[in-house]
């Protein structure tokens, strides 16, 4: 069995990047995710795997370094927190428009503006619905533990290259700062030049005489060509929605009341379910692991089975709109949230649940 190491979620991202053969990390420090680059700088992977680690002069710069690295077929990533991610959104839109793979980690803090440095989930709308301009989707993964942070880097790159699409790991201050034990898997070496050609035949790696040149761009001045491209993206997104939805369920089998929560909130809701079950109330939890594609189908199925649903989020109510869309009016869907970096306790959610369901 692999050794289990105690580490922060942010440290797990960094260690996983090195161990999964990532070619480059470009970032700019911001609380609560600064440990990602700190750990990379301490580990000095450029001396072992040859991975590049670079502190850019700004988030705008780091996302454009990602754009460049990804154009060459390299496994490149960055991380930041909410205000920094806002600065990156232009670049993420360009990357989506150029159909390039990359992994972006967002360790959310409270907003809007510079907001607070404490944990939050208030960038659901921003990341899940796009963030930058244009008709595009990020593939969005929501980790709920340090182990998830470790595992999702590799999973994220698999998806990013499979679909030539940006992947965002949408974490929060709790998941980034909390230490838990992490099991590390076999090391994956970085791709060789030949492997890059195979994994990314579209990459700008130098034109041989045997093929046409590869062009990476997000610019098209011809309306018909752009529309054709938009429809090609739409087809790709449909394949992703069909194949990549991931969620987990806790005690939903016979549940009369279902909570929907992601990331740190899903951990807290597990305790809520335990508490309600101890009182004889049949509660359960659905945790979306991919926020886009969203588990519409499973929520629709549960909506037919239960009396009511409640979306629990560290924001003013963002994912709840997708839950309501999925439930389609089949059952009432309530919401409870905290903001500004404050965290709800399981007891607090139990109280709000009873109020919503008239059980108090």
């Amino acid at each position, binding site marked *: 069995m692999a050794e*289990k190491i*105690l580490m922060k979620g942010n440290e797990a991202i960094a260690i996983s990047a090195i161990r999964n053969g990532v070619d480059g990390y470009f970032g700019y420090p911001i*609380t*609560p995710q600064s440990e990602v680059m700190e750990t990379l700088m301490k580990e000095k992977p450029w001396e072992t795997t040859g991975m590049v680690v670079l502190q850019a002069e700004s988030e705008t710069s780091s996302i454009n370094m990602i754009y460049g690295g990804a154009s060459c077929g390299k496994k490149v990533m960055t991380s930041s927190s909410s205000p920094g991610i806002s600065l990156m959104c232009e670049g993420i839109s360009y990357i989506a428009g150029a159909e390039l793979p990359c992994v972006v980690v967002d360790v959310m803090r409270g907003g809007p503006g510079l907001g607070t*440095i*404490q944990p939050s989930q208030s960038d659901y709308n921003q990341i899940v619905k796009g963030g930058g301009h244009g008709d595009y989707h990020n593939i969005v993964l929501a980790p709920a533990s340090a182990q998830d942070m470790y595992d999702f880097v590799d999973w994220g790159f698999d998806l990013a290259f499979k679909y030539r699409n940006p992947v965002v790991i949408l974490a929060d*201050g*709790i998941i980034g*700062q*909390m*230490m*838990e*034990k992490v099991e590390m898997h076999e090391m994956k070496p970085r791709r060789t030049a030949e492997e890059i050609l195979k994994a990314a035949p579209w990459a700008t790696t130098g034109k041989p005489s045997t093929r046409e040149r590869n062009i990476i761009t997000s610019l098209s001045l011809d309306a018909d060509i752009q529309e054709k491209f938009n429809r090609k993206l739409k087809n790709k997104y449909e394949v992703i929605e069909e194949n990549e939805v991931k969620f987990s369920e806790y005690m939903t089998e016979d549940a009369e009341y279902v909570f929907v929560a992601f990331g*740190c909130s899903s*951990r*807290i809701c*597990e*305790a809520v379910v*335990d508490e309600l079950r101890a009182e004889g109330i049949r509660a359960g939890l659905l945790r979306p692991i991919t926020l886009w594609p969203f588990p519409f189908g499973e929520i629709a199925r549960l909506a037919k089975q239960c009396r009511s649903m409640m979306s629990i989020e560290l924001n003013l109510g963002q994912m709840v709109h997708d839950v309501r869309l999925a439930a389609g009016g089949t059952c009432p869907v309530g919401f409870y949230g905290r903001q500004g970096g404050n*965290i709800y*306790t*399981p*007891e607090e959610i139990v109280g709000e649940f009873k109020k919503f369901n008239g059980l108090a």
Partner: protein
Amino acid sequence: MKEEIIIAGFGGQGVLSMGKILAYSAIMQDMEVTWMPSYGPEMRGGTANVCVILSDKKIGSPIVTKYDTAIILNQQSMDKFEQTVKPGGWLVYDPSGITRHPSRTDINICRIDAIEGAARIGNSKVYNMVVLGGFLAVKPIVSLENVEKGLGKSIPARYSSLIPMNKAAIEDGMEHVEIVHRI
């Protein structure tokens, strides 16, 4: 078995590393752990605290508001956390710098003068290990053997020569803890 612990004091007292060593010790005996620190401005010269949860089972919420044990190392933390100890739980505190001693009668209370203990060992940096010893004397949730292994995991390899001194500090704390109130 599940133990929810808050460790709170000033930045620099070794609050976070004490939590980390405790967490690693629990991993050595195959338990699940979470370690959730306060982070941000309050760390810089102000109060620092960390919530450590040790459990035989997978840990759901890493955020709790009531604790089985509070380890309290300054007055601000006493004011903040005395009331958060579950009835029947333990409050472990260092009396130096405490002006308002704990007054609850529904919890167990013990004190550990860790400054004196660290002086006996001859190094002020082992202060937090004396406190940890005091805690383990009243709540032996991890064995001394696993704590020693946990120390080995937490301390960078180049400082491994310091493990015996840290172990001595833990033993000193175990020996000198003083029970103030027992329910």
